[in-house]
């Protein structure tokens, strides 16, 4: 299995170069919200291992919200973030990027603080890496290459069925299965289809993963006595904060919201970037670290592939701390409109939303951390819209395909590769076609 990794390069933008940078980023799009995959700066189409990527200016318009907690407003630099999700090792991707798009990356990064024309691109990017505190991958091990092979399989089988309706409709499910297996075997031998076997898991990655799987619970076990002692105090403190923390959920500015809408819904999948300041104090910090640590661990070792709780529409997501835990940013790639995304979250995984986002300043009031909060739907939606950032450049390697499409194609392939299916399996498999 080839594991997926995420990368994020973060650099402050030189104030004098902001306009130039915005121009450069805009030049990478064919139209607002639609990247030109062959754009000369970063020709995304040439990357075979890149699932999603984005370039975004982290222009947080909510930094003054800290006043509600009696904190002074801090002036942060305007950051540029270049992030994405790729197959294999993060460093390998950065190296590939610096060979495929050296001039484009240099042009972009020259608008950032600390970039010199003689800088080594890979070293420069590595030095500005910003790792996620929690990461979610819809289907660990499914590479871009595999997604494309399986999509071609779906297209080929759909095409075959469409042009041979009467002959296939006369067949029983086992016959359909056998005939399609024959077809796929013929197509693969003729080189028209390719279903590459899963590559072996790199030993280093496998080892790290297993150590993580065992190590985190061990560490927790080690600290368990301490956790038991502080738990009651922690709960008391958290309950007090929950009841008193201010809500800041004004109606999002119409022009701001409209500008976000302009770059949404150009594909079946959308990008989402939301940013804000975290609530002050150790209790909130521990909460967010504990919750997101759990999310990360569960996403890596526990959740069923294709699902995040009940949600099946997220391809990749991550939570990142900025400015040493003072601010947090959330990125995701999800299917459907932003309204359906929010509704799905509220109605299916409201508790998860509350746990992970209620530590942000202004979040609608929660109750025992998991209840209420986002179930005040209007407030929550305004809160989130206000914290959403426009994403200047966004790339997806498989336009038109939702995460559910990818799962269907994978299920189709699994069935094709098995010589026999049991009754129920066979019925479900034929129903996919």
């Amino acid at each position: 299995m080839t594991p997926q990794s995420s990368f994020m390069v973060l650099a402050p933008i030189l104030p004098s170069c902001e306009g130039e940078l915005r121009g450069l980023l805009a030049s990478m799009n064919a139209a607002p919200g639609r990247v030109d995959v062959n754009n000369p700066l970063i020709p995304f189409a040439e990357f075979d291992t890149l699932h999603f990527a984005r370039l975004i200016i982290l222009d947080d318009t909510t930094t003054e919200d800290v006043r509600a907690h009696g904190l002074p407003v801090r002036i942060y630099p305007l950051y540029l973030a270049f992030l994405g999700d790729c197959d294999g090792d993060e460093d390998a991707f950065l190296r590939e990027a610096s060979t495929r798009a050296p001039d484009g990356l240099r042009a972009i990064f020259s608008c950032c603080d600390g970039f010199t024309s003689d800088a080594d691109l890979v070293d420069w990017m590595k030095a500005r890496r910003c790792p996620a505190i929690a990461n979610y991958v819809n289907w660990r091990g499914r590479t871009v290459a595999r997604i494309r092979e399986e999509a071609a399989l779906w297209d080929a089988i759909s095409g075959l069925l469409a042009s041979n309706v009467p002959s296939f409709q006369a067949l029983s499910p086992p016959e359909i299965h056998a005939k399609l297996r024959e077809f796929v075997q013929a197509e693969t031998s003729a080189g028209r289809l390719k279903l590459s076997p899963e590559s072996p898991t790199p030993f280093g990655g496998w080892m790290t993963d297993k150590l993580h799987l065992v190590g985190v619970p061990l560490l927790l076990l080690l600290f368990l006595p301490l956790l038991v002692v502080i738990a009651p105090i922690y709960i008391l403190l958290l309950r007090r904060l929950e009841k008193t923390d201010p809500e800041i959920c004004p109606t999002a500015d119409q022009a701001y919201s409209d500008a976000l809408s302009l770059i949404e819904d150009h594909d079946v999948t959308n990008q989402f970037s939301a940013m804000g300041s975290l609530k002050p104090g150790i209790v909130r910090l521990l909460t967010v670290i504990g919750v997101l640590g759990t999310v990360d661990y569960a996403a890596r070792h526990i959740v069923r592939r294709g699902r995040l709780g009940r949600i099946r529409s997220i391809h990749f997501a991550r939570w990142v701390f900025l400015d040493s835990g003072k601010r947090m940013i959330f990125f995701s790639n999800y299917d459907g409109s932003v309204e359906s995304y929010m509704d799905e979250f509220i109605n299916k995984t409201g508790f998860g939303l509350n746990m992970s986002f209620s530590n942000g300043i202004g979040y609608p009031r929660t109750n025992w951390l998991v209840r209420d909060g986002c179930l005040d739907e209007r407030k929550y939606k305004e809160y989130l819209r206000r914290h959403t950032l426009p994403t200047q450049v966004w790339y997806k390697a498989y336009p038109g395909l939702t995460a559910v499409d990818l799962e269907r194609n994978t299920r189709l392939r699994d069935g094709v590769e098995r010589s026999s299916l049991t009754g129920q399996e066979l019925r479900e498999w034929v129903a996919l076609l």
Partner: protein
Amino acid sequence: MKSGKIDYGDVQGLVRFGYKRMTQARYDLLRVKNATAARAWLRAAPVTTAVSMDPPPKTALQIAFTAPGLRALGLPESAIAGFSHEFRTGMATESRARQLGDVGSNAPEWWAWGGRSKEPHLVVMFFAEPGHFESLVEICTGAAWQEAFEPLVPPLGTADLDGIEPFGFVDGISQPQIDWEQSKKTSDPQLDYTNIAALGEFLLGYRNEYGKLTERPLLEPSAASEGLLAAADDSAKRDLGVNGTYLVMRQLQQDVRGFWEFVNGQSGGNPAEAAKLAAAMVGRTTGGDPLAPVRDEPIPGVDPQDAAANQFTFDQDPTGSRCPFGAHVRRANPRNADFPGRPANFLKKLIIMLGFGPRGFRDDLVSPVRFHRILRRGREYGVEPPPATPPTADPERGLHFICLNANISRQFEFLQNAWIANTKFSGLSGESDPLLGNRQTIPGCPVSSDFNIPAEGGLRRRVSGLPQFVTTRGGAYFFLPSIRALRYFAALGDG
């Protein structure tokens, strides 16, 4: 926070009644020519309330405003800012058009009304039983009306097709039942589909399915706002929204000839096959019988007398072999609950919540429907169709689609975007609503004009190349105010 008992006398009647017996109706899309005269006309307008009368009235008059219309009447921006984003920006923005499927020939630039250049200020709706229509219109559209308004387009007429919509199907069979008594417990997860919807889903100022009050303009108390009710969630403020709601109006032109020609063509001219295909596309026969099996247990909010038409969910049809996943009624109302598979206890719920519930391909893909219901109040226009044969001459006809909802983005827009127009609804691919879809492609999806009919234990039937049968010809978002809010609008600018 306590929402009070409903005062039907403050609610426009359309929220409670469809006025079915008033078979004549007309919608006048107007622009305010003279604000003073418009307010004077409003003061005198005999607007019908939701009070149940015996004998029932013979006529009804309803009025709703767009955001530019409220502005034209003199409502200050600070009050307009209290309405929802969707209402304030309107139906025809570029982004919204993309979400609603109003692209290609549906695009607002081709609309007969609505959109940037042809935005109505208000719609006045006349309803009457036969013999009373002319007098109602005459009373209302005298000299004061002439001075106040100018028509944006000629009045939109409606046709009495006796409950049949232009394609030939019985229409308006399924409607949510409003919980006027506000007795529904909305905070608990709902394990079974119910047809009862919280009052706050259809009327502002009451608890919705989340147990919350939807945002609406709350005004500072003043002499002018004295006639308005106090807000249930902020007694210091006056509630301009309570007992009002949003009214979505869309003129949907139906290509009846194209529909039946296509269906007949696909069926080799066999009328029984054609009827079967048409029914599969709708999810009901032309007579209104559901394709999904009717169940024995009653459904809350479904009249037992109505069981044959509405006592069903799709749980009894998980493979879609009775009613296709993409059928219009299955998209428009998936009839599901908050959880799949009716988890009996907390542990089972938790298992589902954490993502370890049913693992079938289509399990749990569709959002719980109770947050996405609409109240349909539309009427047909154009001539009566011959049921299954393509008419020779094909004059314009269709539906003046009207629906009421308290939250346009969560109700109408969600339904239209995520369920009707979505080519990926319920794990499908390459098809949108077989009746309403615009058949436009999006990057990476070269086809959206299929329709798939699953078959039990065999290969599904795929119908390809569906033409566009329905074209959006106009549309706008309106606010249907309470009687008190109407009076408030009518008094704007006084003093």
